[in-house]
């Protein structure tokens, strides 16, 4: 006869996600999580969802026009949405890293107790998904709060008004997409985190960036020039070539970006005269690809801002009738919204990455603090390590299209200086947003330094 007390616990057949779900709930019950580290990813996903819903609502409002102009506006808005997807994916990966870091003791204990690496991965992905869901729902609230202001934005000379309201299904779909993207990018992001029974560590393999990336970039440019100069058989082919050239331009930036970041960091390293400058340059040089990846979305945003912004500024200055009366101004409005949204997402992602790094290196930072390194130096080094690539990417991605399309950009500056100044101002505001996002992570560092002064031995 067996009793409940003496019978061995039997495994109950359950779905593959039952165990990770139960563990995720156990670790994330109210009152069990560190507040700042838990709120950061959720807050970032809230910002992302608000931005996505706002841009999506603006885009879908064009459908209600029911004319050919609406199609063109829809196409342009769709393009803006695509530009925002890459920073969203980066943000998801950052959130996953932070999630793993803040729960490092729990996760390594799970491994010690025999949980497989897959189970731990599932728990973390579920956490990232749950954070994204909470954030996305808050983001829906953000969309509603912003509504009265966004409805005042003019397109085709009239405010968006009631056309701004999304169908609830579109809102739900956006929330689902944010959660799914967060889960997928968290799974990808986790490949860079090793969870062993002894602890959680970010896999740090020194990265080398070779000059052959530049050679590949040159080849792509040559291919584009050849394609653009070839006589096209039809308008469709011409359009494909133009889109291809744009994609190739971005590919060039992505190929050459890490190399450029590394070259710039090496230059800064040689000149570094202060501890913070030395540290910042070395941190970038240690992982130039990661430094680039974090800010690469800005290259697309700046690139597009210059090309579309210059074109829009010129169109604005040409006296016209019908659609063209508003097209330039409307494209400029769209560009400004995309610039601010893109920079905001990068600011969130960079901030979250910083929080994860600070937690990753808590013991090191505590030791530096004990040795008397001023907190200002640690702060300046971590901020500089992100801001250097941000500034580099922003300047290069603005300057390259400005020079390549000099007839267009030059004319825009000459004839529409105010619009171009406004565009430059919005890029500067974007950079300031990223800087503010990094500064906002200061309390995480302070928290880490202060938790180290308890009793040990």
């Amino acid at each position, binding site marked *: 006869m067996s009793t409940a007390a003496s019978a061995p616990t039997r495994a109950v057949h359950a779905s593959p996600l039952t165990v990770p779900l139960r563990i995720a709930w156990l670790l994330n019950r109210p009152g069990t999580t560190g507040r700042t580290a838990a709120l950061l990813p959720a807050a970032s996903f809230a910002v992302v969802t608000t931005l996505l819903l706002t841009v999506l609502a603006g885009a879908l409002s064009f459908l209600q026009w029911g004319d050919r102009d609406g199609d063109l506006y829809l196409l342009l808005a769709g393009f803006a949405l695509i530009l925002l997807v890459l920073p969203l994916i980066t943000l998801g990966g950052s959130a996953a890293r932070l999630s793993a870091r803040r729960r490092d003791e729990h996760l390594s204990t799970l491994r010690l107790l025999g949980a497989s690496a897959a189970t731990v991965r599932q728990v973390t992905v579920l956490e990232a998904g749950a954070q994204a869901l909470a954030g996305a729902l808050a983001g829906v609230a953000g969309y509603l709060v912003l509504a009265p202001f966004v409805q005042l934005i003019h397109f085709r000379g009239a405010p968006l008004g009631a056309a701004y309201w999304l169908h609830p299904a579109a809102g739900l779909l956006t929330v689902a997409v944010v959660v799914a993207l967060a889960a997928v990018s968290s799974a990808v992001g986790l490949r860079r985190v090793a969870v062993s029974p002894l602890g959680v560590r970010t896999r740090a393999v020194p990265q080398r960036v070779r000059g052959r990336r530049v050679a590949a970039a040159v080849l792509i440019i040559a291919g584009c020039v050849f394609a653009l100069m070839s006589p096209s058989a039809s308008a469709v082919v011409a359009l494909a070539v133009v889109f291809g050239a744009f994609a190739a331009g971005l590919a060039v930036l992505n190929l050459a970006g890490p190399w450029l970041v590394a070259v710039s960091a090496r230059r800064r390293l040689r000149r570094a005269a202060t501890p913070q400058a030395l540290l910042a340059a070395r941190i970038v040089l240690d992982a130039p690809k990661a430094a680039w990846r974090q800010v690469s979305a800005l290259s697309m945003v700046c690139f597009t801002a210059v090309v579309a912004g210059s074109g829009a500024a010129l169109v604005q200055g040409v006296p016209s009738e019908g659609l063209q009366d508003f097209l330039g101004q409307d494209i400029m409005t769209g560009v400004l919204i995309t610039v601010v949204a893109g920079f905001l997402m990068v600011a969130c992602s960079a901030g979250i990455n910083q929080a994860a790094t600070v937690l990753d290196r808590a013991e090191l930072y505590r030791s530096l603090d004990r040795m008397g390194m001023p907190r200002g130096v640690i702060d300046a080094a971590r901020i500089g390590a992100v801001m250097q690539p941000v500034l580099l990417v922003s300047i290069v991605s603005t300057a390259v299209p400005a020079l390549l399309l000099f007839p267009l950009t030059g004319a825009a500056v000459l004839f529409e200086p105010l619009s171009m100044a406004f565009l430059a101002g919005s890029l500067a505001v974007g950079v300031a947003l990223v800087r503010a996002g990094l500064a906002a992570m200061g309390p995480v560092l302070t928290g880490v330094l202060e938790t180290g002064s308890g009793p040990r*031995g």
Partner: protein
Amino acid sequence: MSGAPLLAAENLVKTYNGAPALSGVSLTVRPGESVAVMGASGSGKTTLLHCLAGIVQPDAGRVRLFRDAALPVEVTALKDDARSALRRRDFGFVFQQGLLIPELTAGENVALALMLGGTERRQAEQAAAGALAALGLAGMEGRRIGELSGGQAQRVAIARAQVTGARMLFADEPTGALDSSTSAEVMRLLLQTVQGSGRALMVVTHDSEVARWCGRVITLADGVVVADTAGASGVRR
């Protein structure tokens, strides 16, 4: 050992959430001394090191640093920034796993300590190369920390602790992550930096083998000094 003190603590009291970590600890460290602080986990040895080094403020009692015998600095009366500056200039630290900055080279890790004090980079790197060479790491300034063995990394940490000319060195379980022969080597180098230099060394350890290297052993239990005896350093050296 007699002579003017380098560091003196009087009646240090520290509690954490109502639990006493130090209950009236007094001690004096003199130049040339090597002091091991031993005790079980929770005995208060790390808290004592933190109070002496100005990392945490005791609830009561005072710590004085005798840079100048006639004009001691009251560490416990200083504000946070001033204590940080004091740690940069007057104290050197060696931690259990070196805790070096992984992105920097060995030379840069050592030079950083000087740069924080305002030394020009080139000069700091030259001094760092000299300090590393003195510890048997000549030519390794350009190596990344990940490319060094545990013992070599700890030697870089020792170089970093002494390159500023700090007279009081604190080592918190400096051999905790090392095998016995590397531990012996690290202790030999730590003591070498103290001998005849006017410096003093305080090692927090739970390992009696490590403590035997020091000239004096202080034992703590429940935040109280229960023994303060001469060590067996002469035997091993």
